[in-house]
């Protein structure tokens, strides 16, 4: 099936999310749609999938103009979509989720679950997915949930499959499996639109690449193009792909976590005897697939949750059992994982958001009232220092872009003298410019001698920032490894494989993307990093490593 988008334009108020976009997807090709966060990729695909009405433009299927009023029409035309946030009902079984919307029925409108199971089984067997049709979706790991989404699309006979940022939640090994699935689908004649901002993946699988920037198509590229070339096309200027940082100068270990355990209300052990130290002047990155205890760890440290056992000391002071206020006063800076919910108060102005934690302290407080002049002066100074692009410091923080919201959060947390900085997913959903800024500020904080803990599910980010990497799986520490550990080893550890086994496996069986890394490194004539030596080899700087 040939799919063509012609002159698609979609506006949201004054914002033009898609500006006359043309795109042709040929039958049986993997077409990558490359662009940074906020470039308009997802909007375009939602237009194609009938979730948004385009303001202008046409969708052509096999050269026939079509109008999709809802997703039902798009599906009927043979278009399937795997959304970035899975569209699965967590309390339904796999078979029920796949059947939803086109359910096989027996007499009287009763579900024919045997038929629904058979459909899942058939597709699952054809592609070797190994998915149990009777499993509840909420009990499945994200990789398996994604396969359920693919089965869902294929069971509706999708001929064009849209994958929206499909690798964001996967380990490198899972990504590898996904790439294999994509190739298999391509073999069987399905076209794939692969939406991503990850250059490495695009080069590994795409047949053709269309680059989008600020809602416009800025060009087509060949998969053989160099990463730096693609990056500059995507961002619109040349970018350095790594973080410039000096080797860490670790001082005393002032942060000590001992045997922290958390059991949630359902009796699940979310944190299981977690112990580690962080030294002044080093960045410890906590890597792991989402939902393996990272959130609980940061919330316990901040005092938002109570552990059933264990201790957390900062500069020798026990902080478990203290209030959040006490923890903040002890010098902990915290960048929460979801800035829109926990990081800012969207209706408050930028100036107010910048003093959320200090509003009751001099100079911002004056007796029972606040001192607006001081709050404003602070805001003017911080917005300049942290490059917050806002029409005014009185603008509601919720109206800023994601990158600028995150800068507000960082500016607030770094405006106190810190004894520890904890940042969860500091660059999730940000554009490249903001990512560079946030990373450089974090490194700067480290160089000031602050211990820093970064929680990230993005291996790229972990590898770019970390001096040491702690890998978590199901609430336990799988291992603590040097910052230059091979990404395949980390990927296996994120799936719960212990360090030694992970090194052995990674050495014999590299992922596609890992191999691409190796080749790139060999070109720059450095020794291959695998297997990870216990004494880390000096690495070429990140730019060459990428």
């Amino acid at each position, binding site marked *: 099936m040939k799919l063509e988008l012609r002159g698609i334009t979609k506006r949201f108020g004054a914002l033009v999310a898609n500006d006359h976009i043309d795109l042709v997807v040929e039958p049986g090709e993997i077409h990558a749609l490359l662009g940074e966060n906020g470039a308009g990729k997802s909007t375009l695909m939602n237009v194609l999938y009938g979730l948004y009405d385009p303001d202008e433009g046409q969708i052509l299927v096999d050269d026939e103009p079509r109008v999709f009023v809802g997703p039902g029409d798009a599906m009927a035309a043979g278009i399937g979509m795997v959304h970035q946030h899975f569209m699965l009902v967590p309390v*339904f079984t796999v078979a029920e989720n796949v059947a939803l919307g086109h359910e096989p029925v027996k007499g009287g409108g009763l579900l024919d679950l045997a038929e629904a199971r058979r459909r899942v089984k058939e597709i699952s067997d054809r592609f070797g997915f190994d998915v149990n049709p009777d499993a509840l979706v909420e009990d499945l790991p994200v990789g398996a949930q994604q396969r359920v989404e693919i089965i869902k699309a294929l069971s509706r006979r999708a001929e064009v499959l849209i994958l929206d940022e499909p690798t964001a939640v996967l380990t490198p090994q899972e990504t590898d499996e996904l790439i294999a699935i994509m190739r298999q689908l391509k073999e069987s004649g399905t076209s794939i639109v692969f939406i991503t901002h990850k250059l490495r993946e695009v080069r590994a699988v795409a047949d053709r690449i269309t680059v989008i920037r600020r809602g416009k198509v800025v060009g087509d590229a060949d998969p053989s193009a160099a990463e730096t070339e693609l990056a500059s096309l995507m961002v619109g200027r040349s970018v350095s792909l790594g973080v410039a940082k000096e080797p860490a100068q670790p001082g005393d270990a002032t942060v000590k976590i001992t045997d922290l355990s958390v059991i949630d209300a359902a009796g699940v052990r979310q944190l299981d005897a977690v112990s580690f130290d962080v030294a002044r002047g080093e960045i410890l990155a906590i890597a792991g697939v989402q939902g393996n205890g990272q959130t609980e760890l940061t919330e316990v440290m901040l005092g938002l949750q109570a552990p059933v056992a264990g201790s957390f000391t900062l500069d020798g002071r026990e902080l478990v059992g203290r209030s959040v206020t006490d923890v903040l006063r002890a010098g902990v800076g915290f960048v929460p994982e979801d800035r829109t919910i926990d990081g800012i108060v969207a209706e408050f102005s930028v100036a107010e958001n910048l003093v959320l934690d200090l509003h009751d302290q001099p100079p911002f407080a004056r007796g029972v009232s606040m001192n607006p002049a001081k709050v404003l002066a602070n805001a003017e100074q911080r917005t300049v220092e942290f490059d917050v692009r806002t029409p005014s410091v009185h603008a509601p923080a919720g109206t800023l872009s994601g990158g600028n919201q995150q800068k507000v959060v960082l500016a607030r947390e770094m405006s106190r003298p810190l004894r520890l900085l904890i940042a969860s997913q500091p660059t999730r959903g940000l554009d490249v410019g903001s990512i560079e800024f946030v990373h450089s500020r974090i490194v700067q904080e480290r160089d000031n001698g602050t211990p820093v803990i970064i929680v990230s599910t993005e291996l790229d980010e972990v590898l770019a920032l970390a001096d040491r990497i702690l890998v978590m799986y199901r609430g336990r520490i799988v291992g603590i490894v040097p910052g230059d550990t091979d990404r395949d080893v980390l990927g296996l550890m994120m799936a719960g494989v212990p360090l030694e086994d992970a090194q052995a496996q990674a050495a014999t069986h590299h992922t596609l993307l890992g191999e691409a890394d190796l080749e790139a490194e060999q070109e720059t004539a450095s020794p291959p990093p695998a297997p990870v030596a216990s004494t880390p080899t000096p690495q070429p700087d990140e730019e060459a490593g990428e």
Partner: protein
Amino acid sequence: MTATTVAPPAPAPEKAKPLAPISWKAPIGYGVVGLISLVLFGLLPADGQDSTFVLSTSKDFFTIDPITVPAKVTAIVLSVIALVLAGISWQATRNRRKVGAWLPVVFGIVVVLAFLTWADAGKSSPLPLTGLLQGSLFLAIPLVFGSLAGLLCERSGIINVAIEGQLLAGAFLAAVVASITSSAYVGLVAAPIAGMIVSALLVLFSIRYVVNQIIVGVVLNVLVVGVTSYLFSTVLKADASTFNSPPKLPTIDIPLLSQIPIVGPVLFRQTILVYIMYVVVVLLQIFVFRSRWGLRLRAVGEHPKAADTVGIKVNRTRVRATLLGGAVAGLGGAFFTVAAGLAFGKEMTGGKGFIALAAMILGRWNPVGALAAALLFGFSDNLQVVLGIIGTPIPSQIMLMTPYVVTIFAVAGLVGRVRPPAAEGIPYVK
């Protein structure tokens, strides 16, 4: 980086893992109630009095003679059984084991029996056990219909706190139509229409105008009270014989089944409304969980966007479910007038719609569960009536509180961790 020496991540040696703190709420509750029962019903009362239970009616296949027991001894034995159950619960909690649903059920029955033994001690009138159960089912009717209505709406993601108003509207229209046509059955047909009208307003405001669903529901309750009270004071009072003298639905005996002792008269000597109720509970239990309609209904209430992406019309599904829910609640409203054989009175539903909401939660958004919860509340309601008749040592004002106290304790104590439909109360706007 090279400056740091990395210690090999030695696996932590196996040691005793910290466990979640044990919740002693349940065994303490059982123990306290069991002790109160032992002291109050068993040890304190004077010796030598008897209690009599009547177990059958004259119409049954074979009649069972009324059972007379010595009150004090029986109450002590029953209370001791309750304390043994509390002990089992304590033991299980200490060993972190789960006990089945049988324990609270048996415990409840035992304590209630101890209470009844005490309440009837030394009374000349025997306690009609069959009548007590029959009346419980009767009083549970509006609660069952109300909780099923709430369930239908909430499973689709719309919170319906207007059940009270829907019951009242159903009661009103059933009374008026039955009076005018002189037919209880026509009144029964009219009742759902009134409930649907209230539901139509609910969806109009909560879906079309995206107003907070709880606020709309509360306002609708007040609106229905106002409208029916106004019409009652003006039209219905002016000519009560034409507009407000509904005939009563006849009781229909199901042959054979109705003659089984104890159970027969309770379940099968009822009005058509009760038989409709059985059918609705069974149909909903099957269709909500096993049909295409039910799968879509639940998908819309759990993850509307996922439903939308597979081509299900979210708001249309919600409107239909809410209208159907309104019809079910309206039908339940007919209980107050045509089924009970009473004229319509101002605010005659008396908060039953809210207790129905509690029954829905206690029943975990599940038709059979809602039925069981409604029966529990109906029983506590009727107990108060029956004890009022035979006369007990407890002041009647306190007895009147029973159904509400039972509701609060049941919802707070027995519910435990339940998971409502994930998207309930959240409007779906593209």
